[in-house]
């Protein structure tokens, strides 16, 4: 008698059950469904209720206001902006100013943070004590206080424009900021840029080649003299052939302020300095913790290979420390970005100041504007963490785990 082979039981339903209801099965699924429905109902009620009440009080709602003219000016803008532009433009101006402070702040905070951490771990007594003092002083004072300190105590103490500190009568430092000559592009500008780019690309190719040579045959090729020669030489040749790339527009004192030139406003400087030094103190501790977490044997092994202390750190310790450093470092980057909204205290025109501040009070549309602003900060933070996660993924992949 032929035995009919038993069919394997269908896997589909239990799989579905597990996926939807977890361990609890179907009843878990029903509970989840109820929970989601309740959430949806609550959010619907909130929106509908707010809408009804706004209408009852005849408060304008919706996003139509964004197309209206702003009618006010802003002290720093990365894109052309005038008072007759719409609120959408104001939003963009504020957003770019926020991003500018964040990116530059993160850049300097990272550099200062790493240097201070290395200083603190240094065998040099004085250096390590100074670094330790820096961390303890800076991270224990409120950041708003530090911003105000830089703005009101340091930068405001500079002389007025008529008595500004000048260097060669072309760079001026006053309580209106740092004013430097502005480059104005000439006929030779494009060839100059092309030559510079070619030089940089060629240097990178050369460096990669040298690295491969080192790994394959152990031959050490000194790259930097060639790179330097190209980066200086090629643009120089372009200048000789095509003429000078830029002329400089020198600032002149005219009336109350300087006309011409480019200017770094004190609000920007104070905010960037305060945020990067403050965040650097935290980054220093994170980096220090990361380095200490790498086993001492790694350092000793590196030394016994005959590597210098700097090379041991750079090639062996820091790459391993990065895995520990990265997640809290991301937090600090996000903190810096969010802290940049303290700009409003010193009149730096960031997103919160011009959009969630001036625009809000001119239009009165609090819910819409705060909603947009929260969305933007959320987006910036998510993008930052995504970039950092990608970086972390690459590190762990390159270390095989």
């Amino acid at each position, binding site marked *: 008698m032929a035995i009919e082979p038993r069919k394997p039981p269908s896997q589909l339903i239990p799989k579905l059950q597990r996926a939807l209801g977890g361990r609890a099965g179907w009843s878990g699924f029903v509970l989840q469904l109820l929970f989601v429905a309740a959430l949806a109902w609550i959010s619907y009620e*909130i929106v509908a*209720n*707010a809408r009804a*009440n*706004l209408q*009852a*009080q*005849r*408060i*304008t709602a919706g996003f139509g206001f964004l197309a209206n003219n702003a*009618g*006010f*000016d*802003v*002290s720093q803008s990365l894109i052309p902006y005038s*008072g007759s532009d719409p609120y959408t433009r104001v939003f963009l101006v504020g957003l770019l100013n926020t991003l500018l402070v964040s990116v530059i702040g993160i850049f300097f905070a990272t550099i200062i943070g790493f240097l201070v951490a290395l200083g603190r771990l240094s065998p040099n007594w004085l250096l390590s004590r100074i670094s330790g003092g820096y961390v303890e002083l800076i991270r224990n004072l409120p950041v708003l206080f530090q911003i105000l300190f830089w703005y*009101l105590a340091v930068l*405001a*103490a500079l002389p*007025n424009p008529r008595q500004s500190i000048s260097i060669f009568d072309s760079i001026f430092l006053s*309580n*209106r900021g740092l004013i430097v000559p502005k480059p104005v592009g000439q006929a030779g500008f494009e060839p100059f840029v092309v030559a510079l780019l070619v030089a940089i690309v060629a240097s990178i190719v050369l460096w990669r080649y040298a690295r491969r040579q080192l790994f394959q045959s152990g031959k050490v090729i000194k790259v930097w003299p060639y790179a330097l020669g190209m980066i200086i030489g090629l643009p120089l040749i372009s200048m000789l052939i095509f003429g000078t790339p830029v002329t400089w527009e020198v600032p002149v004192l*005219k*009336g*109350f*302020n300087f*006309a011409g030139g480019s200017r770094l406003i*004190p*609000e920007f400087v104070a905010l960037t300095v305060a945020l990067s030094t403050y965040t650097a103190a935290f980054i220093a501790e994170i980096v220090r913790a990361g380095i200490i977490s790498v086993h001492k044997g790694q350092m000793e092994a590196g030394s016994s290979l005959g590597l210098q202390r700097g090379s041991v750190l750079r090639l062996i310790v820091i790459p391993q420390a990065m895995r520990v450093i990265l997640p809290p470092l991301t937090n600090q980057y996000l903190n810096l970005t969010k802290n940049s*909204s*303290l700009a*409003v*205290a*010193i*009149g730096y*025109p960031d997103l*919160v*100041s*011009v959009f*969630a*501040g*001036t625009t*809000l*009070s*001119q*239009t*009165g*549309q*609090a*819910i819409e504007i*705060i909603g947009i602003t929260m969305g933007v900060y959320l987006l910036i933070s998510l993008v930052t963490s995504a970039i950092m996660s990608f970086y972390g993924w690459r590190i762990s992949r390159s270390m095989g785990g």
Partner: protein
Amino acid sequence: MKRVSLVVTLAAAAALSAQAASAQTLKTVKDRGMLSCGVSQGLPGFSSPDDKGNWTGLDVDICRAVAAAIFNDATKIKFVPLSAKDRFTALQSGEIDVLSRNTTWTLSRDTSLGANFTGVTYYDGQGFLVKKSLKVNSALELNSASVCVQTGTTTEQNLADYFKGNNMKYEVIAFATADETVKAYESGRCDVFTSDVSQLYAERLKVANPADHVVLPEVISKEPLGPMVRHGDDQWFDIVKWTLFAMVGAEELGMTQKNIDEMAKSDKPEVKRAVGTDGNLGEQLGLTKDWMVRIVRATGNYGESFERNVGSGSKLGIARGLNNLWSKGGIQYAPPIR
């Protein structure tokens, strides 16, 4: 600042979604036993706390008068200091019952904020404060200047219009509070501080050496300042509106803080209507018959309040000017109280 405004805004959003538009402000205030009044964070002459924490000023007197009319007690008030950019949200959310905070009456504010202006407590205009050492005599000489301004005010837009209209360049630096703005001006970050003229006089008192600063003669805008209430409660709107008219009307009738008790016994028909010995005008508002007596006893008439807070009796020393009674060359005018 950021934190405060965020909290207020979130509170606004929560309140807007939780609570139906209330048309019973008077009842709410009576039940609470206290009027909640939005004022500035300290503007001498209009609303500022003294060294004992008592709020005084012209804007404060409006709230005191409303409280006096309701409770016969001008101290039953909770003052809520607000920055320029938080003020409307606080009113919308129901955190305050009246916003009496040197706020300029404009069409868009009257229509889109869900609130109404109830009248004009002070006819103001925007001006410029500069250091005397700059030797500037007119606002038209301010080309290329750096200007400090408080954010969230009509001032910012007037400033843009004025400099554009006169083909002048300028740099604007906007701060969240008046104190920060003045500090930046004083430190030399700006050449000019611009605001309503009354506020310039008031803020000038705060700088180290007031005599070194001068208010330029140009007044570049109309700034009628007045109290605001929420949409949707006409009775409350009437009470706040007629409280101001009662103060102006009392001045027209010659009722003062000193003579109010004699006036209450007067047999002049228009005074009898005002003090409530004839008719029931106060009750029509939802108040008591003697509402005007209560108001005048608490704050004095409009002229007395003006002189005490911003006029000759104060450090500001501002002339009555436009704010004089219509019969004396100004434009303060109350509709008939009858």
